[in-house]
C-alpha cells in the first residue's frame, strides 16, 4: 500500500510541475503577444521573452515525456485501478467544474473588456487555454491534498 501512497504523491507532484511549467511557457508566449499588441520594441525584452518561451517549452516537453513514462509505469503496476478510484474520479469532476466556471467568468470579463479595448483573438484564446489547463490541474491536486480530517491508524 505504501507503493500506492508513493504513486499518488508522484502523480500530484508531476501534475503540479506540469501546470506550473505550462503556465510559465504559455505565460511567456502571452507576454510576447502583449508586447506585440502594444508595439513595444525593446529588443532585450523581446529576446528574453523568446528565450523563456523556448526554454520553458523544452522543459514542458521533457516533463510531458516523464509523465507519459510515469503513466506507463502506473498502467503496468497492480495499483492502476486503485490510483483511479472513485474519490479520484470525484476530485477530477470537481476540478473540471471549477475550471469550467473560471473560464466562463473570464469569458464574461473579457467580453466586457472588449467594449473598451479590442483584444486580438489569439490572445483571448491563449488566456482561456492557460486558465483551463492550469486551474484544472492545480485544483485537482488541491482536492487530492485536502480533506483528511484525521489519519487513522
Amino acid at each position, binding site marked *: 500500500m505504501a507503493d500506492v501512497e508513493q504513486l499518488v504523491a508522484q502523480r500530484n507532484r508531476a501534475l503540479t510541475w506540469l501546470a506550473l511549467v505550462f503556465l510559465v511557457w504559455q505565460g511567456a508566449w502571452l507576454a510576447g503577444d502583449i508586447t506585440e499588441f502594444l508595439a513595444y520594441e525593446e529588443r532585450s525584452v523581446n529576446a528574453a521573452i523568446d528565450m523563456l518561451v523556448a526554454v520553458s517549452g523544452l522543459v514542458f516537453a521533457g516533463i510531458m515525456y516523464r509523465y507519459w513514462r510515469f503513466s506507463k509505469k502506473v498502467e503496468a503496476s497492480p495499483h492502476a485501478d*486503485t490510483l483511479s478510484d*472513485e*474519490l479520484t474520479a470525484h476530485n477530477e469532476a470537481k476540478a473540471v467544474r471549477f475550471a469550467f466556471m473560471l473560464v466562463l467568468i473570464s469569458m464574461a470579463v473579457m467580453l466586457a473588456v472588449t467594449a473598451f479595448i479590442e483584444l486580438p483573438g489569439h490572445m483571448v484564446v491563449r488566456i482561456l487555454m492557460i486558465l483551463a489547463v492550469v486551474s484544472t490541474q492545480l485544483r485537482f491536486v488541491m482536492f487530492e491534498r485536502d*480533506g483528511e480530517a484525521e*489519519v*487513522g*491508524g
Partner: protein
Amino acid sequence: MTAGNLGNRLKELRARHNFTQAQLAEAVGVTRKTINTVENRVFIPSTVLALKLAAALQVPVEELFYLEGGEGSTPSS
C-alpha cells in the same frame, strides 16, 4: 444528499477488526485517502464501495452506514 446526512461506523468496525486505513483500503481496492474521507464524512461512497466495505468488515451495509435525522436514521447494532 450531503456527506453530513450519512453517518457511518467505519472507524469503530475497522478498529474491531484491527484494520488500519491502509489495510482496509487495500482490501477494497481504493486509496487510503478514500477510506479516510469516507470515515470522516467528507466523501459519500458509491453503493459498490459501500457494499465492498461492508463485506470486508463482515457486517450488513446498513450496520455500517445509516441516515441521520429522519427515517432509517438509527444505526442497527
